[in-house]
């Protein structure tokens, strides 16, 4: 069946460093959504990407959709403690498939 690979599984950063998570699909996607799940919480919608090569920004977060619509990335500039959580991509073509998530951990 269709799968979405999300990497890395974890990323440890110092506060102020950057963070990036990637989602890769073997098939072309109609759209991709990104969600954030805080520890003990539920997923919360961040953004949706639809167009080939699309780039969207939300303050320190930058979201990209690949030209072939098979991959996407989320980049956080200068991480803060409020960014802690797990970031999931949710891919769509004929099914809704969620990535396994990338957990952002801020080193003490």
């Amino acid at each position: 069946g269709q799968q979405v690979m999300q990497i890395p599984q974890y990323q440890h950063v110092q506060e102020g460093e950057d963070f990036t998570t990637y989602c890769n699909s073997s098939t072309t996607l109609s759209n991709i959504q990104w969600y954030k799940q805080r520890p003990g919480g539920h997923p919360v919608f961040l953004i949706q990407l639809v167009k080939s090569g699309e780039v969207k920004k939300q303050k320190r977060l930058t979201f990209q959709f690949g030209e072939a619509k098979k991959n996407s990335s989320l980049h956080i500039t200068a991480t803060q403690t409020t960014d802690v959580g797990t970031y999931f991509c949710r891919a769509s073509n004929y099914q809704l498939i969620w990535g396994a998530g990338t957990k952002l951990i801020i080193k003490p």
Partner: protein
Amino acid sequence: EAGVAQSPRYKIIEKRQSVAFWCNPISGHATLYWYQQILGQGPKLLIQFQNNGVVDDSQLPKDRFSAERLKGVDSTLKIQPAKLEDSAVYLCASSADSGSYNEQFFGPGTRLTVL
């Protein structure tokens, strides 16, 4: 606007027992989803309803899991009998429509522990 409501928040049962979860979506949302999220993994779609009809239940273990949304509003998910591997958080989500372009709104989830 009230969010997605779920109950109970926590449930502990022994294997082979039965359990039921309830979800009330955001008012006016036609589409309701049930997800299973095992610790450290992404949500896995169990079933998707559009009003009171099933859109996708391809990953629902139908020998033990059942779900209904009889009046097209709230929904129940049942497990009968439960197995140890069913320990997970069960998330309910809703969206305005069934298209994949719609944002999903999640409830707080029900944490199930099967002993």
